[in-house]
């Protein structure tokens, strides 16, 4: 057991993805947002008329909605300085060999091709505004699984696309969903056919390379009756002195008896505003699980949601946040019980270090008629320094009396007794601290598919295992 590790040694603070790739984008929009930029994006994608209309309507909605005054501080965010669309290459590739050298190099350094060869069912890679690479193992393709870039999804499956697009998260849902609806680019279109069980994950990887970049991926995932799948997304960006902006919209439909898990390991550099809307409609006896890890970014505002629409549906949100100097993780989860006998659980663990601030924000809503619903929310926060801050803001709205709802939260510092005990066994204070922190997040960390996503492991689990395990 090596004893040379500290909390820093957990690798949570260290940022390994600062490198910048020199590339030559084929198109870069003007800075700032305008109708012209929206039209350009739509034209580049050779979209049908209805999509352009949709985008323009969304732009109006975005402009009419006020900036949220709750959550994190958005006052310093300047959208006029952001590039809303950067097209890195002319067309998407299905073979690594054809991906331009500079971009390929980036993903090589992130370990993506290696992971794909060994442990992933399919991989999508987004660089700036476009998916540069998308591939799916043949065995799944043969079963009718669709795993395409969102743009190809629109072109190849127009009816299936239009049937589901913006049905889970309409543009008017919130200001940033409206923004995404106006300028979306990249993301995945996934369909898992009835009864298909994909036992290894699909992965999407998001990389922002350019300075002052805005990335707006849009993902639709339809999990048909009785099927099972797991989707992982990872995100990184280099550190610039200017701020970048990421605002995705993820729409998921989990049909009857299906099971789906969506894992995010967000490790944006800490100049990134990360404002994401993620929501799943969960039908009869289906299960949806969000596993949401937020380690990077300057400010993240993200609350993955489960709308439990069918009887017996189950929703789960596992959220882990780590905020260090200058970071604010405003994260949590929402569960909305619409149908009878639905169940849900939100488990949140956050760690605040230095001047970091972690806020849990969540909603548990039970509509009248959702009889026999049960929900349990648990939030634990760990504070490592005097200057750290933690907040808990749960909203619990219950309109049904035949429901059982519980919420609990605790805030603590690492216990003196715990440290004393470990130190009396020969550990230095920092090592003891690291062990306690690891124990704190372990219930969630162990759910990470560590054998699948190598770059994720580097980030959290492997280094922690090595540190004091």
């Amino acid at each position, binding site marked *: 057991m090596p004893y040379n590790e500290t909390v820093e040694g957990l690798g949570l603070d260290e940022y390994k993805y600062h490198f910048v790739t020199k590339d030559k984008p084929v198109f870069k929009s003007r800075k700032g947002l305008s109708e012209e930029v929206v039209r350009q994006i739509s034209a580049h994608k050779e979209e049908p008329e209805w999509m352009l209309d949709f985008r323009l309507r969304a732009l109006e909605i975005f402009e009419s909605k006020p900036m949220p005054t709750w959550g994190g501080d958005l006052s310093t965010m300047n959208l006029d300085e952001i590039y809303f669309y950067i097209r890195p290459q002319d067309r998407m590739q299905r073979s690594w060999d054809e991906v331009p050298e500079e971009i390929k190099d980036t993903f090589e350094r992130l370990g993506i091709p290696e992971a794909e060869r060994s442990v992933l069912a399919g991989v999508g890679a987004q660089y700036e505004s476009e998916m540069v690479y998308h591939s799916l193992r043949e065995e799944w393709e043969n079963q009718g699984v669709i795993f395409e870039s969102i743009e190809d999804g629109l072109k190849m499956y127009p009816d299936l696309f239009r049937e589901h697009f913006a049905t889970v998260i309409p543009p008017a849902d919130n200001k940033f969903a409206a923004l995404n609806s106006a300028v979306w680019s990249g993301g995945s279109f996934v369909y898992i056919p009835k009864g298909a069980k994909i036992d290894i994950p699909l992965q999407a990887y998001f990389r922002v390379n350019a300075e002052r970049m805005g990335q707006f991926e849009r993902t639709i995932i339809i999990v048909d009756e009785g099927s099972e799948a797991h989707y992982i997304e990872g995100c990184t960006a280099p550190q610039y002195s200017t701020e970048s902006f990421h605002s995705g919209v993820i729409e998921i439909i989990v049909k009857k008896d299906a099971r789906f898990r969506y894992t995010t390991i967000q490790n944006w550099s800490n100049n990134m505003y990360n404002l994401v809307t993620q929501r799943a409609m969960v039908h009869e006896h289906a299960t949806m699980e969000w596993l949401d890890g937020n380690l990077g970014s300057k400010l993240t505002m993200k609350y993955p949601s489960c709308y439990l629409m069918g009887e017996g549906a189950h929703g789960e949100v596992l959220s882990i946040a780590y905020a260090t100097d200058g970071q604010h993780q405003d994260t949590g989860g929402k569960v909305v019980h619409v149908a009878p006998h639905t169940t849900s659980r939100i488990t949140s663990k956050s760690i605040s270090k230095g001047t970091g601030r972690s806020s849990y924000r969540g909603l548990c809503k039970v509509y009248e008629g959702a009889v026999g619903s049960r929900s349990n929310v648990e939030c634990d926060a760990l504070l490592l320094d*005097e200057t*750290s801050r*933690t907040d808990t803001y*749960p909203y*619990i709205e*219950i309109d049904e009396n035949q*429901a*059982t709802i519980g919420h609990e*939260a605790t*805030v603590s510092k690492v216990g003196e007794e715990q440290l004393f005990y470990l130190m009396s066994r020969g550990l230095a204070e920092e090592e003891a601290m690291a062990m306690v922190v690891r124990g704190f997040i372990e219930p969630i960390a162990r759910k990470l598919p560590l054998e699948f996503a190598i770059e994720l492991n580097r980030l959290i689990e492997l280094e922690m295992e090595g540190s004091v395990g």
Partner: protein
Amino acid sequence: MADGVTTARVAGDTEAGAAGSRLADFLETLDEPATLLERRRRAWERYAELPMPTRKSEEWRYTDLSGLDPESYEPFAPESGEEESRDAGDLPEQAARLLEGMEARGAVAVRVDGRTLHRRLDPALAERGVLFAPIRRVARERPELLAERLYTSDVAPMEEKLWSLHVAMLTGGDVLYVPDGVRVPEPVHVLRWAGEGDRLLSTHTLVVTGREAEVTWVEEYLSPDLERPLLSLSGLEVFAGDGATVRYLALQRYGRGVKHFSVQHLLAGRDTRLSGLNVNLGGDLARDDVTSHLEGPGSESEMLALWFGDGEQHFDHHTLQHHAAPHASSDLLYKGALTDSARSIFRGLIRVDRGAQLTDAYQTNRNLLLSEHCHATTLPNLEIEADDVRCSHGATVGQVDEGMLFYLMSRGLTRRTAERLLVFGFFDEVLERVPVEGIRERLRDAIGSKIGI
């Protein structure tokens, strides 16, 4: 404060005093100490400047004020501060009946429509320097007690509109002062009866205690069911000295037709012990905004509440446990039961300032839903900026236990009676924390008659 004894009129040319405004007209009729008038005038200006909060603000998200037009209420005439105290025997029947069983009190006041009809203070307490008098009289005779205290609460921005209205339209209020080291063994109890609709009643209480003093303040709000609506605004400010113990109980059992807004700010010094209980049973709409500021190390605050809502009743509770000093502890327990189409909201915040190390802060809200159409919303919030703390909160929404119901029904009780008994048991966890036997029984009776057992 020599000018405290002069009188002045509120200037008729304030911009706030729009022509035809009955509230502005009210301000012009007043004849009271200049310091009080000045406060009213400033509050009225503030009131006029501020928009009525809407449901777009977080604080009023669940309580809709759009139907509230303060101009439609006629303020009750303010007390002069010199009302003659009648003997208990000379009181109107209703008020006299309320005084039954209130013999064991350190002091008693009965206010009807804001005016004091009866006031009694144990002479032994008066001798030891305890003061229990209308604000207006205290402004004339002991202005130093009000300076830097009266209306100084740092009400939240979204509460300021109604708070300003409360200050500007004050009907009457009491000051309770307990000097250093004086222990008031029996509670001080104020009954506030309102008998008329279409009226605005604004009452205020200032409790000031010296070091190591001890007192229990009880206030009761009552009215018949009113056909025309009554707007009731109430404020409580407690300044508890180092080492003092201040207990506070509010029993709101208005009849239907009343909208009641209450702002309560309690300030604890070093090693101070505060305890507050709000019981909401009556009115159409009741909103309590309760803040404990723990400004001195070693202070403790207990915050309790009970409510039972039926019909269309709407109860909204806001709380703040503000830890500004280290080594302080606070414990909040809010329990409510709802039936019919009643609705309740609990929005509580524990705020621990940087440097408030070794804080212990707890917050629990439990809700029982007894019918299909009632709604409970609970928002227990934490904002923690110190690292060496123990904070937790919990919230639950559920039903009475089916097993217990079955047991009671198998003993011959109807479902309704069994259910109500279980609600009573649910409340008992809070009631048993009330230290004064006579008060505890009075609360039990009030709750029992409300829930119908």
